[in-house]
């Protein structure tokens, strides 16, 4: 495989792995919070699925468009910098998604006002 393609593929795979790594630790707490706030089981599933979809589609969108600008015959570290640059864009997107989703959940909590706060 040409090094440019390998670099692009590495960015894609690591970006998706990062998105899943962000999702996994918070999925249970998010589910608990949503089940208290939304109180509609389908709503909990909807918001959890939306969150995963937003993360995966978003990082894919970033990684596909902004492929690392590397050419054959470069030094090893130049490929590493290419991957790092691509991952930087993906992480930026993940952070943005987290921020917007957090705002959305906050609005949801404020609007629906869960009763049992104990």
């Amino acid at each position, binding site marked *: 495989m040409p090094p440019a393609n390998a670099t692009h593929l590495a960015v894609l795979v690591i970006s998706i792995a990062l998105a899943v790594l962000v999702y996994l630790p918070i999925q249970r707490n998010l589910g608990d919070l949503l089940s208290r706030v*939304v109180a*509609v*089981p*389908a*709503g909990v*599933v*909807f*918001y959890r*699925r*939306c969150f995963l*979809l*937003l993360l995966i*589609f*978003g990082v*894919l*969108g*970033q990684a*596909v*468009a902004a*492929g690392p600008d590397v050419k054959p015959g470069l030094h090893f570290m130049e490929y590493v910098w290419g991957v790092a640059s691509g991952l930087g864009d993906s992480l930026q997107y993940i952070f943005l*998604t987290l921020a*917007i989703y957090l705002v*959305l959940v906050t*609005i*949801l909590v404020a*609007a*629906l*006002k869960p009763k049992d706060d104990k």
Partner: protein
Amino acid sequence: MTNEQYLIVSYFCVAPVSVGIGFVAYLWLRGPLRGIAATLPWKGFRELLVRLFPAGILLPALLGFLSVSYKGCNIREYDKIIARREYLVSKNQEQISASLVHVVWAVFAWCALIAIFLAAKRRFDLRDKSHPAASE
């Protein structure tokens, strides 16, 4: 394969891929959305929501694909567009990326819309409990 042939083939291959991206998102969210719609108290509105959902996800995916133009700032003539294969590949990548990003924004919009519906439903339920006769 010449660059012109590549342009034609890739354009008509990436278009279904873009719609497919929207279709995957639609299939992933269809079940829970129907579940939410089933809990809403307004019957006509429930059906409207379920029928609007595919259009609300598939059209943004298609829009993302269509929003990418092959004509750039310095490249406006057809001959220049098909001169470099790398340029055509980068445009295909841009089309797929735009579809993904448009679907992401559509999903954000649906999340907000569902939040509004759930809040309205909560108010409706509370009013229903305090004044049972009002809803009849």
